[in-house]
Every structure is written in C-alpha cells, then in structure tokens.
C-alpha cells in the first residue's frame, strides 16, 4: 500500500474493497436463501399436485382408472401453463395426459414401481427445464401399479431468481456509491486542517508567514507546535550564525588592521618591540577566533530527535580526563549524580558546559572539587564547586552583563564561562555563581527538561 500516496485514495480504496467483499458475500448468501425457498415451494407444489391427482382418480366404466377433467386444477388445462400431469397404467400406457402438454407425451418415458416415488430433473427438447415426480400406486385388485406423473417448469422460478439477483446488485451498487460519496466528503472535511497545515508550512518556507497559526484539532496540535518550535529554532540559529560571522569578521579585521599598521610603521622602532606588538595582536586574534568558534558551535538543539543524554557517564569521563590532565595537582573530585539524571539536547553541548565548569574548578581549586547533578520533573540542576578563592564580584558582574560580548569585556580565562553562559541560554536555562560549601566558587547550571521547552 506504500504505492498509494494520498490519504484520501487510501481510505477510498479500502472502503471500496471492504464494501465489495461485504456485499458480494451478502449477495451470494441472499441468492442461496432465495433459491432454497423457491426449491421448497416447488417441491411442495409437486407433492400437493401428485396427492391431488391420486385423490381425484377413480375407476372408470372399463375398470381402468380415470381422472374427472371437470374437477382438475385449471392449470392442467391451459397451454404451456408450466404444470404438466400424466397417468400411466402398469404397462406404461397413458390413461390421461394434461392439456397443458398440447398433445405431446409427458417428457418422462418411465414408470415407477409400486410405492416408489421417483424424483427427476428433466431437460427435454421442446420443453422448458422441468422438475418432475413419478409416484407408483397399486390400485385395489389391479396387479400392476399406476404411475402418477407431475412436472413443474423451472422457468418462472429461474426468472424470479434472476430478477431478485439483479435487484440486489443494483441496490448494493447504489449503497456503495453513496458510501463512497459520503466517505469522500468526510475526508475532505477531516483533511482540511492537514491541508491548512501544509499550506502554512509552504508559506513559511516561501517566507510569506512567520509561524503556523490558527487552532488545530488535538491530533495535529503536537505536530503544529513542534513545527513551530523547529521553525523558531531554525530562525534563531540563522540569526546566531549571522551574528557570529559579523562578530568574527570584526574580531579578525581589527587585529589584522593593527598588524598592517605595525608592519608599515617606521623601521626606527626596535625589532623586538614590533615583534611583541605583533604577538599581542596575534594573541588577541587567537582568543577571539577561539571564543567565536566555540560559541557558534553550540548546537542548541530543540530536543526534537534527540535522545536523553545520561549525565553520569559524561561527568565520569570528564573527571577521568581532568584527573589525567591535572594529575600533578592530585585533586579530590567527588561526584554525586542522582540516578537517571538526563539532559535533552546535544551531548556535545552538555559536555562543553560541564567540561568548562569542571576544568575551571580543577584549575582554581586548592585540592577539592564537588560535582552534583539533581534532576526533577522539570529541570536538571548541576553544580560544580571548589575550595579555591572564588570568583570576584566584578568578574561575575561582567560575565552576566546582558548583550555584551565576552571577548570584549572578559579576559582570556573567563571565555570558557562566557561560552557556558551562552550555551545554557540557548537551552533557555540559567547559569549562576554562588559560594561553595568548600569555600570557593560554586557554579550552578539549571536546564529545563524536554517538553518544557
């Protein structure tokens, strides 16, 4: 069914198939029931006529049986009435044949034994198909039995059956067509919001629309909301990339300009001074490029299509890495992560956030670091504390100054934290600085969990 792309075509196709199967079964069933009834009726008629003839028969003047024609069923007297009768003596000589045979012999040229009832289906040229019964009857002192024969034409029954069948098929075709029309109309009604969604997405794509609007039925609300989120994330990402490129261009061009100037400066300056100045500019460039690249790289995933990232193994990896890097310092790092603490987003982003925080803690601690992660229904809270000197108020204030780019306001060491702050904000979380129980700084990251985004 993968070939049938349209929902409407699928539904119509399935309704068609279902109706045809259902109606075919019904038609066959009704047809069989109708025929059975007709067969029984005919059998009863034959039975009644045979018994009727036997009741009418009486010995004539010659001792032979005869049938008083005045008392007989009128259908025996009408040409081709479809009811035929005959009476034979024991030698097969016809004593009586109904007028409806129009002088022809009764189509069955056989006699029945005494007490025998012989049932026949006859198809003889010149006659319509006939169902017949021969009944052998012994009459008083006559040694040979008489045979009473009754034949009933199948034609009227077959005609009735055909009429009934045509009527049934016609009726069911009508019902099927009506159903398809109803289903089709229903689909148009049901699919209207889907078409609206599709149209709106196309408009968003074309730039004629900012987001999906209007109320959607409950089955589509989730889809519409997620699409809006995706559109929003995409737009914010684009804005961020543009800003990053602008910032990067600015960050690179200023030191480049300074270096050009330095190079073209009077040669009077000692080579060492100029080399120092060049080095400073290079360092500035390096710092800015590294900062811009790191903040541009944070993906800020929407939580769509991302698996929850377990916090514990990630913290453990970082701890091992940092233990290796700072092995001469012998830092005692205690990690407490509640089981099941997880993050919805890009694992690289979380590694970056935690890596920077833990690296700072290892760098500035006197010997102890504490990492804790707690997750509630709505948020993931991670704290990293150390027993160092803590973060100065002035630095903290600079770090949290909104709208100020870190590479302009913060010296080299703080860039990691600035990147952390920006990454956390991409996830609409928060970074705060406090005092650790160990006496040093404690950095606290709160991230909203997926679904709450």
């Amino acid at each position: 069914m993968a070939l049938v792309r349209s929902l409407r075509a699928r539904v119509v196709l399935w309704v068609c198939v279902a109706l045809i199967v259902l109606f075919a079964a019904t038609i066959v069933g009704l047809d069989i029931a109708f025929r059975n009834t007709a067969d029984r009726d005919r059998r009863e008629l034959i039975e009644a006529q045979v018994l009727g003839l036997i009741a009418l028969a009486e010995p004539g003047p010659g001792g032979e049986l005869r049938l008083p024609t005045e008392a007989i069923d009128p259908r025996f007297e009408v040409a081709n009435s479809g009811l035929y009768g005959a009476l034979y003596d024991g030698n097969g000589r016809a004593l009586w044949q109904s007028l409806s045979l129009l002088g022809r012999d009764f189509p069955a040229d056989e006699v029945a034994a005494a007490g025998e009832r012989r049932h026949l289906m006859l198809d003889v040229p010149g006659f319509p198909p006939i169902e017949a019964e021969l009944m052998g009857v012994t009459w008083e002192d006559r040694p040979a039995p008489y045979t009473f024969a009754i034949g009933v034409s199948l034609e009227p029954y077959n005609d009735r059956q055909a009429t009934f069948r045509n009527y049934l098929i016609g009726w069911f075709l009508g019902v099927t067509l009506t159903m398809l029309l109803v289903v089709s109309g229903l689909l148009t009604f049901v699919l209207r919001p889907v078409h609206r969604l599709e149209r709106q997405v196309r408009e968003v794509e074309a730039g004629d629309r900012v987001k999906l609007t209007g109320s959607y039925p409950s089955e589509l609300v989730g889809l519409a909301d997620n699409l809006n989120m995706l559109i929003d994330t995409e737009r914010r990402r684009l804005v961020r990339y543009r800003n990053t490129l602008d910032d990067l261009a600015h960050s690179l061009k200023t030191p480049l300009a300074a270096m050009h100037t330095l190079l073209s400066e009077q040669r009077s300056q000692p080579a060492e001074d100029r080399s120092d100045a060049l080095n400073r500019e290079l360092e500035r460039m390096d710092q800015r490029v590294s900062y811009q690249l790191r903040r541009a790289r944070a993906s800020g995933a929407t939580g769509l299509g991302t698996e929850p990232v377990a916090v514990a193994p990630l913290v453990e990896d970082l701890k091992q890495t940092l233990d290796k890097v700072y092995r001469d310092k012998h830092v005692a790092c205690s990690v407490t992560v509640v089981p099941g603490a997880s993050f919805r987003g890009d694992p690289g982003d979380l590694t970056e956030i935690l890596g920077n925080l833990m690296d700072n803690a290892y760098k500035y601690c006197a010997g102890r670091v504490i990492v804790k992660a707690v997750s509630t229904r709505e948020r993931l809270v991670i704290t990293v504390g150390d027993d160092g000197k803590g973060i100065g108020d002035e630095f903290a204030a600079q770090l949290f100054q909104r709208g100020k780019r870190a590479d302009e306001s913060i010296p080299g060491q703080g860039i990691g934290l600035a990147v952390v702050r920006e990454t956390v904000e991409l996830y609409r979380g928060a970074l705060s600085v406090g005092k650790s129980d160990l006496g040093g700084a404690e950095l606290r990251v709160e991230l909203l969990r997926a679904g709450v985004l």
Partner: protein
Amino acid sequence: MRLLLVEDDPNLNRSLATQLEQAGYVVDRAADGQEGLYLAREYPVNLAIIDLGLPKLSGVELIKQLRADGKSYPVLVLTARDRWQDKVEVLKLGADDYVVKPFNVEELLARIDALLRRATGWAQSELVCGPIVLDTRTQEVKVKGQKLELTSFEYKLLEYLMLHAGEVLSKTQITESLYEEDFERDSNVIEVFIGRLRRKLDPEDEYKPIETLRGRGYRLAVARGAPPSG
C-alpha cells in the same frame, strides 16, 4: 631525551623541531602517520608529539597502533579541535595530554617536561638526588647549594641520568636518547662526558654519584630525594 614529532604542516613541523632542539631535545620528525609509525618502531622514543589530523594514518590510528605495539611512553596530542568531547576521546584513547592549536611554545615545552618527569616517576619540576638539585624549568643545577656551570650536553646527560636515577643505562641507550645521528654511537664521547660530569659533581671524590657497571653501562647511584640530614 628523544622526541618523536608527527605534524603534517611543514612550517609548524620545522619551526617546532628547531625550538625543541634548542630546548635540548633530540627530535625525530615525521610528516604523516605512516612515517611516524615507522620512526616510532625504529628509534627508542621517550615521548611522542602527535597531530590528530594527519595524512595516510590519522593521529588517532597512530596512537592506537603505538599502544597496541606496547609503547608506554607519554603521548602529547596537538589538535585544532578544542571541544571537550574531543579531549575526552583523545585521552581515553591512550594519549596523556593535549595542546590545542594555536599554542604557545613555552606551554608546550612545560607540558613535555612534565610528561617526561611523570613518566620517570618525578612529580616536581625540580629533580633532587641527594646533594644534586636540577631544575628542569630554569635548567639550573646546584650541588650542596652551590650553582654548577654545565655545558648544554653535560646538562642533558645529567638530566637524563637523574630522570632515570637508580636505573642502569647502557651507552647505546644514552647515545640514542641524546644524539640524533647514528654514527656517533661508536665514539667514546659518552665516557668522556661521564668523566667530566663526575669531576664537576664530585670534585673531592666524596660520594661517587655515577657508578660504572662493567659491560652494562652507568647508573646514578644517589637515591632520589634530599638526604635525611638535609
């Protein structure tokens, strides 16, 4: 100390090698992973500096190969990738430290120094063997508090002996670690320098710091750490 430098950028490779040599190291240079692996298998290396983005055999593969070969010396990774995910991965792989490009040569030297000391069981940058104190950062040597004037090769030799204090070091081992070229191995230079070091460290012939083990090599016989008397 013999370093293996595997870096594919020719300028960085040349300039870095020059500065490492100036700092007293013997440097084997390779421009791709396969050459690096060949050199690592041919020469006794004390530390490898490996760029991650290498042609032919990636840095990651090279480190895996080295570790699979049973080489346990420190590996310092140079990388432009500064994501924490990359750092975690690199150290998990078997590297001992990483330096993110662009880097400061002084910082690189400090990291190399620290890794070499750690590999030989020294935690501080100051190596102390009885009365001999050698500061690997300032390259200053003091005996009983008196500053000692050593030539650059004498210093390299003493540092090598002190880093491996207590171990027997064959002449071949010493020449291979301190000399770049093969042909000098046959000379008696080492014997001459050992003699000079002995005279400078112990002019009164009191504590005989350098032992000669016949047919086996030399050993710094003074125990690590300051003497109990202070």
